[in-house]
């Protein structure tokens, strides 16, 4: 399997692509924080935040529609939040009678629900842009620069390196299972549920042992190539004036968003 299957990186030369990865990570996290901090129903500020997403997307040369396609990953979670629309006191908007329960959607509840969904939707889009404009190895180096413990960063970089290989392995196991028809079919093929669970469990046990033994070989190969506990990179990711300037500008814009969000509600 090719790495492209998983990697959402879109090659490019623009301003956003060339920004230091640690700046991009920090700004993405701050943007999400800023969304969460905006009060419910601050529609103007939330729309401006969306403009920020669109601006970033355009500057990165991805076009306006790019994030839209993938931004609905988190929406199933909205099901859990829908309950809040019926749970806040306020002016009743709609009433439904379902059996013994009476559901009353209130204006405060609906505003809160809509705010949660919009915040999530905006945050996911910025996270998509981060992955689309930053190579994953660069993201890992950014974690290093941001003083995430070396041990965790090392584990993550190993994980990324072997993700594709082990996924391939898992796919081969699943293909073998399908070929041997352990799949439930019309007419009751494929054994009982417990039997199918055991098959899956055996596959996972098999995959575990293969991975375990592979890590032995990996370590020996690394030692043979002079591994000394450090990962090296040819791109140093130093902060330039441009990175500082863009970072500062973005932070000022987000502070302005907060001010706007609070002013428009009063």
């Amino acid at each position, binding site marked *: 399997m090719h790495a492209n*299957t*998983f990697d959402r990186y879109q090659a490019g030369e623009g301003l956003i692509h060339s920004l230091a990865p640690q700046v991009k990570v920090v700004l*993405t*996290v701050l943007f*999400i924080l800023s*969304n*969460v901090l905006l009060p*419910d129903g601050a529609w103007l500020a939330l729309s401006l935040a969306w403009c920020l997403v669109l601006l970033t997307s355009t500057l990165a040369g991805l076009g306006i529609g790019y994030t839209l396609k993938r931004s609905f*990953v*988190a929406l*199933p*979670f909205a099901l*859990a*939040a829908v*309950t*809040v629309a019926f749970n806040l*006191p306020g002016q009743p908007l709609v009433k439904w009678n379902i059996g013994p329960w009476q559901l009353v959607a209130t204006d*405060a509840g609906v505003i809160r629900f809509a705010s949660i969904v919009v*915040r*999530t939707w*905006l*945050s*996911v889009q910025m*996270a998509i842009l*981060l*992955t689309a404009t930053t190579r994953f190895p660069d*993201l890992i180096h950014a974690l290093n620069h941001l003083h995430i*413990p070396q*041990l965790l960063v*090392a*584990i*993550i970089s*190993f*994980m*990324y*390196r072997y*993700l594709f*290989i*082990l*996924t391939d392995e*898992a*796919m081969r*196991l699943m293909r073998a299972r399908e070929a041997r028809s352990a799949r*439930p079919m019309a007419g009751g093929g494929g054994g009982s549920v*417990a039997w*199918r669970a*055991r098959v*899956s*469990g*055996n596959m*996972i*046990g098999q*995959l*575990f*042992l293969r*991975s375990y033994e592979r*890590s032995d070989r*990996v*370590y020996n190969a690394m030692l043979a190539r002079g591994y000394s*506990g450090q990962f090296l990179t040819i791109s140093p990711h130093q902060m330039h004036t441009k990175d500082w300037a863009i970072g500062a500008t973005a932070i000022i814009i987000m502070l302005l968003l907060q001010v706007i969000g609070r002013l428009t509600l009063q």
Partner: protein
Amino acid sequence: MSYVSRAYISAGATDSPALHIPDGFLSVWMALLCWAAAVLLLAIAVRRSRGELVERQIPLMGVMAAFIFAAQMINFPVAGGTSGHLLGGALAAIALGPWAGMLVMTSVIGVQALLFQDGGLVVMGANILNMGLLTTLIGYGLFQTVAGQRREVRLAVAGIAAWLSVIAGALATSLQLWLSGTTALRIVVPAMVGIHALIGIGEALITVAALAFILQTRPDILEVHSQTRGGRGWVIAGAIMALVVVLLAPLASANPDGLERVAMDLGFIQQGMASPYQILPDYTLPLMNETALSTILAGAIGVMVVAGLTVMVVRLLRRPARATS
């Protein structure tokens, strides 16, 4: 899009509405609180994983994180087009040891959030806590209670531990959502706990089968962690956490009103909600005795959680000193 990424997306779609909390669903203070708890445990895990063994352990843990990710793709067809898959927290902890298990699960959750937007960035602390730390704690702790017992007994306990670990994750997730003012307790806790009591059965079956396979082929791998590192602290911590889940899950599902009242009295809800929040008048009326009883119950559980965490932290901080001496 290839078969693989579709498989990933479909695998993710079955559990992402359940446990990978996206950004925007937790209030800032809840997100920070979860980060604090996660960072505390991870700091101990990193500290405990230092030393001569770690250089050898890094490739192992990295490859194992990739393994958990790949294993989550191996689906287990249940019926009528629905299928379950492994979450892996209990398996990772039992097979690799608790600290390595925590670091491995944390890496998996981090990569899922960074690479696939499966789970948020600001709320990642909560996701790590729910899916990576609680699950490994319960999985390993309970498994250690039967260290040295017969194979069947160990496997059965591993199954129970896997089942409880999934419920613990679901319970923690729904409580965090509720305390953030994102969901209504009455609907979400029973729904989440109920669904995950079923999902947990699949997790238990797969975990037991995988462990049986490993025990048969390479028993030495499991023995490394279940004998040399078997500490009573893990047993106590795991048992306490399991007890909390066993007590709290039915309580929160059957009597959410009581829990809501406790949270009101403690001032959680006012902090969690941006807009003023009051319990509806007709909601506070019935059965004062019952709410008083549940207040006491929830209070007792709270004390147990704190006591358990304290015992655990103290024991963990004491052990490295003994190891070096």
